[in-house]
């Protein structure tokens, strides 16, 4: 191992890639700042540098002697000076020429958008050669309109929204796609402090609840939860759509009794001493999808390389965010005014899962929110069953057809493979919500199995 130049430097963690590489592969390890570089990128950079070095000093003995004399870091720095290693690495990473490099991606300032947002400050977009402006947006309807107008190339949406847009529910119909889910879990039911002794949902008759949007899993999960406890969400309680930041203010003003909202909004209500966390949404359905990364089909077909690069960036960001040890760094990266504009403590409590429940207790649940990009077709089918259940769609629904058109399992699987992840082999999976199993192959029977639902 003559060319393992300075073994002391290899204790820094990022160099796991080095061991398997032959000969001079350790060269670049210490020249890379610790940060968000994935193992696959590190490997690529090493290979590029090695190839260069081999080209300059073709004979192995000379090469080793040179490395021994000057040290790996110096050699890498010298190389970088005469040859743009970063550019070469980028060129190798790109699979096709990008049709457009300057992109605008819209988001709503909530923790669900974590991968979309963090990919900017942590460099996941620039790594793919993209210059992405992540643009904060005032509400779901505005995100929808701006994405449909092509002011945004892609956007953060609630998982049911691209389905609704594709079907022309609440807007003109335009084919939209979900090549990646943003987050799973990551919502909670928050109640005003005065209700701290009314924990049984059966006693919630007549209360007022807020959800962020009609076409949201927040809405469907709250309705599901209430219905399982015998309340008809259309008759026994009042549900209204309220933009998330106004939920906390409305709760303080006593205009609503509670809400089911993204975790950072819920935690903010706790932080300000206004409400408490009744349950996390994962207690209703552990592993439910929440928000999605959405793009119009036109964008995907007109700019396939850009679309693929954007997707790769997001999948890698999701993979990075799924690791608990990275969560604190992510919270710090997305807290400033340019992104979420929220107190760091609140975001840390959401992302690390060690949180105050608002009633004086500290709870620990690392799965409070997590990130898994795979857009299971059965997620879409379930969403469609709930649209049918609550009367948002009428008549026959082509569950599988719509799910396949909107939730792009193949694209996600390819991008996951590119990022060094193993995508699931099937496209659909069943799951259990509050003890009731859901079989994606029998959607109509599932809808009909509910006693409480909108007739029609």
């Amino acid at each position, binding site marked *: 191992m003559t060319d393992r130049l300075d073994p002391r430097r290899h204790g820094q963690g990022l160099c796991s890639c080095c061991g398997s590489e032959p000969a001079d592969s350790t060269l670049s390890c210490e020249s890379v700042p610790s940060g968000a570089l994935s193992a696959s990128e590190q490997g690529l950079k090493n290979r590029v540098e090695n190839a260069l070095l081999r080209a300059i000093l073709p004979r192995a003995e000379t090469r080793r002697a040179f490395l021994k004399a000057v040290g790996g870091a110096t050699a890498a720095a010298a190389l970088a000076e005469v040859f743009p290693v970063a550019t070469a690495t980028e060129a190798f990473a790109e699979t096709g020429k990008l049709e457009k490099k300057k992109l605008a991606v819209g988001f709503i300032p909530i923790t669900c958008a974590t991968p979309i947002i963090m990919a900017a400050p942590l460099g996941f977009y620039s790594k793919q050669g993209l210059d992405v*402006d992540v643009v904060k947006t005032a509400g779901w309807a505005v995100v929808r309109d701006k994405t449909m107008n092509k002011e945004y190339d892609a956007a953060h949406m609630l998982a049911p929204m691209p389905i609704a847009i594709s079907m022309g529910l609440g807007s003109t119909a335009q084919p939209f796609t979900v090549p990646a889910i943003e987050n799973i879990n990551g919502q909670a039911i928050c109640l005003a402090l005065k209700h701290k002794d009314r924990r049984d949902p059966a006693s919630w008759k007549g209360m007022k609840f807020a959800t962020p949007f009609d076409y949201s899993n927040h809405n469907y999960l709250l309705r599901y939860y209430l219905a399982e406890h015998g309340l008809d969400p259309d008759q026994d309680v009042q549900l209204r759509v309220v933009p998330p930041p106004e939920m906390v203010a409305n709760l303080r003003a006593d205009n609503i009794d509670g809400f089911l909202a993204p975790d950072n909004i819920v935690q903010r209500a706790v932080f300000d001493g206004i409400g408490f966390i009744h349950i996390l949404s994962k207690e209703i359905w552990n592993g439910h999808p929440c928000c999605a990364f959405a793009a119009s089909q036109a964008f995907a077909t007109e700019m396939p390389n850009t679309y693929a690069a954007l997707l790769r960036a997001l999948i890698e960001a999701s993979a990075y965010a799924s690791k608990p040890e990275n969560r604190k760094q992510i919270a710090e990266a997305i807290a400033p005014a340019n992104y979420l504009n929220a*107190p760091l*403590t609140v975001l840390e409590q959401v992302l690390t899962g060690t949180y105050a429940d608002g009633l004086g207790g500290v709870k620990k649940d690392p799965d409070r929110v997590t990130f898994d990009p795979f857009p299971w077709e059965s997620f879409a089918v379930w969403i469609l069953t709930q649209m049918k259940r609550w009367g948002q769609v009428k008549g026959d629904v082509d569950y599988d057809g719509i799910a396949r058109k909107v939730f792009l399992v193949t694209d996600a699987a390819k991008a996951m493979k590119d990022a060094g992840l193993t995508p699931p082999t099937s496209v659909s999976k069943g799951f259990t919500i509050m003890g009731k199993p859901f079989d994606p192959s029998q959607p109509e029977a599932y809808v009909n199995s509910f006693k409480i639902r909108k007739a029609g």
Partner: protein
Amino acid sequence: MSGSLTLRAAIVSVALFAVFVLGWHLATRSSGATSGMDPEYAKLMGATATQGKSAMPGPLDVASKLWEHLSQPFYDKGPNDKGLGIQIGYSIGRVLVGYLLAVVVAIPLGFLIGMSPLMHKALDPYIQILKPISPLAWMPLALYTIKDSSISAIFVIFICAVWPMLINTAFGVASVRREWINVARTLEVGTLRRAFTVVLPAAAPTILTGMRISIGIAWLVIVAAEMLVGGTGIGYFVWNEWNNLSITNVIIAILLIGVVGMFFDQLLARVARLVTFPE
């Protein structure tokens, strides 16, 4: 006597301000730390819950934050975080574009309506219906048809600013004293020349009043429009800080919106004084 009146008014103004700030300060004092809270739990909670801090910021909070903003008004930390100076600049830019478009449309059209009783009667019902529509009501329609949010914002300013100017111009032109028009006619002055040398100066004070009302409305509208459309501008700043429930910053923005609005108003008041004439 007038000097001492100004002085006395200033004293009353300052006194009112002092009373207001003192009352504000007293009303937002914190009620003392909550006792018996688990320290680990307290670490995860905000000052409102642990220190009994009022949810409303006090005058000192606002003053220190204001100083922070004023000391670096032009920083740019990415598409969603820019200094207050830049935000206000964007808002003023939008307002001016929308407003100037409105001037270009309203004044010639107002002349037409004012000089022709037929057009006045014909267009009146439309103006009366369109005039009272709120900017927020125009917004979805504009976004949907124009398909561009910044042009939509400008359109909304235009459509809200155009009516007071139009009505005032028409009124000013229609109420130019008959004698002056008749004199001009006797001297065989042509229509165009009559419009520019007799009617325009005579109607100018009324037109300027309309323009002054309009700039006020345009400035009111921009905040609402930017809150909806987002991206840049003082309205977006308010919305962004509201998102973070930062009432301190919202108060600062309110203050600045007031100051800029006053500046516009005073500017047009000056111009109006230039064109008034004694009868």
